[in-house]
């Protein structure tokens, strides 16, 4: 009984996303660095730990460390950067199998956070499934460690058609700070969600895109 009153007292926390743009509270300046007018490109380039800054900022390589802010780069508030190559042919409800192939636990936490009342991804018809047999989407996070990639490929084979692969986080996309190889060396990636770690709004965006919404 006390839980119920407590819940009513707390009110609705859930974001209006995707009907409305995310509020400042949901996404303060945690997005990709954007150069100022007088940004020092040369120094930023030589100081970037992953080589994400060349003529523009490469979202897939960027690890969002904030080092380029010393050279007059600003952080944007846009985190919806996911790139889509293929989406599922149905859009009502999708089941997601999460495959961690060697993450630092931050991506795991962000994926887990999709479950909390602030994002509540169930309202959009997205669900986690403990088995790849029921999954439409394979969500891959982390730097590919050989030993786990084997299990990942097995899980991919076990998934029924049609299926899409979503890779989230700079480690899965480009290797990030850990190395040069991303997950696309082993498996075709259909939706790419940058971030280190990608905040829940970005993950939500990526998963919605994967279901063709």
């Amino acid at each position, binding site marked *: 009984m006390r839980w119920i009153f407590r819940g009513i007292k707390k009110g609705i926390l859930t974001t209006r996303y995707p009907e409305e743009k995310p509020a400042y509270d949901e996404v*303060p300046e945690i997005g990709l660095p954007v150069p100022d007018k007088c940004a020092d490109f040369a120094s930023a380039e030589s100081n970037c*730990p992953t080589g994400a800054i060349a003529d523009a900022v490469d979202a897939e390589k960027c690890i969002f460390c904030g080092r380029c802010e010393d050279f007059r780069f600003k952080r944007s508030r846009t985190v919806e950067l996911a790139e889509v190559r293929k989406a599922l042919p149905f859009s009502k409800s999708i089941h997601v199998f999460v495959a961690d192939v*060697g993450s*630092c*636990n931050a991506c795991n936490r962000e994926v*887990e956070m999709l479950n909390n009342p602030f994002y509540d991804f169930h309202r959009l018809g997205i669900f986690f499934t403990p088995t*790849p047999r029921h999954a439409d989407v394979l969500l891959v996070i982390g730097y590919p460690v050989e030993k786990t990639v084997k299990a990942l490929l097995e899980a991919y084979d076990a998934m029924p058609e049609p299926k899409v692969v979503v890779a989230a986080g700079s480690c899965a996309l480009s290797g990030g700070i*850990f190395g040069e190889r991303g997950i696309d060396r082993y498996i075709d990636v259909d939706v790419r969600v940058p971030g280190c*770690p990608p905040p829940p709004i970005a993950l939500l965006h990526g998963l919605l895109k994967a279901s063709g919404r």
Partner: protein
Amino acid sequence: MISGEVEASRISVDELEDMAKNRDVALTAYFCRGDECLYVWTDYERGRTEFTATKEFDLRSRPLFHALSGEMDAYQLKCPGNDVISLHYGPLTTGLWEAGAFKVLTYGERILNVTPDFGYKRREVEKKVVGRRVEEAIFLIERLCGTYSVAYSNAFCTALENGCPERAEYIRAIALELERLYNHFHVIQRLTAAASQKVAISHFSALVEEILRLNAKLFHHRYAFGLNVLGGVRRNVDVNIIDKKLDAIEKDFEELVNILLSSRIFIDRIHNTATLSREDVLKLDSIGIAARGSGVKRDVRTFDSFYSNTPYRIACERDGDSLARTVVRIREIRNSIEIIRHLINELPQTALKSEVECNGFRYGRVEAAHGDVFVAVEVKDGVVKWIGIRPASLVNYVAFIHAVERNVFTDFPFAIESFGLSFADSDR
């Protein structure tokens, strides 16, 4: 935030044996550095960290040694009998949320033995850090375990600095306590999830999210990556944001904990689950929450001069079960909020960063949410020559293995969550 020179605190084996005679000296770390074996010992009462470099000291009495040298199989039960079923649980399971596996031995209902199977997340952080410039090495160390990133980068930075500007030190401590808060909230959330208390899960995960959002506003990163830089911090903090948010979080938390702890169903699940006695802690050299839940006062903050000026109090319980560890966490949450309040009130006006000349072989240690993390690093002209990291999860996995024995299967999630262990942390 303890640091010092390694060479200055080297002692001989005789001195160590003298020390261990009438005091409790814990084995903290073991590293192979070239042909030298480096053992690290801690006297938590007096706050001394000592190093010895010999193979002759009798280590058979120290079960932790196998974990530190990477032989987790040593904890596996040998010849358990004919009726025993062995399971391999992992690496891709939604239950664990991480790429990790457990080798389980059981008769069917009671767990005989559980050993974590590492290697599924081995990113070889230490190997990749060597040869990098210190400024870049910090980014790798932060990503050793993302959810304890502030503790690791803090330990690495303090190891190399000879003190940093006061304001930077305060901001670091604020970030560290915020990290402790969201990790403790998260552990309580996981415990309620294991007990299927769906409403409580939502409430507690909302608290985690509140802190992460606070982090995002303050440090431009939800996990405060990139905050700690050599010689100080990258960003200033806006005190007003924390102050307002903290009041709301504290009020919410007190109400929630009140309801949660009056729920018999929840308490029954964690009471007497995965009990770790005081003797076990001393034998297994456990640290952090595991030790404090069993009545052993092991906390790096007790001998940190920075914390002596704050309202920090050690939280300690005697029972050693999951409930005791949860109560320790609840008390630490209250204390952390108090500490953050004190820190933002007393925030001094100094520079954020100072120049640091990196050279030498030094160590740093910081109390993370689950235990103390230890980093020893050798730097020459700003380039890392050698690094040894002793994550806290690795030590407490040994405690977990011991505590979970003879428990039933349904208690497994309560046992593992109450320790707050992470595969990414130990399987670096």
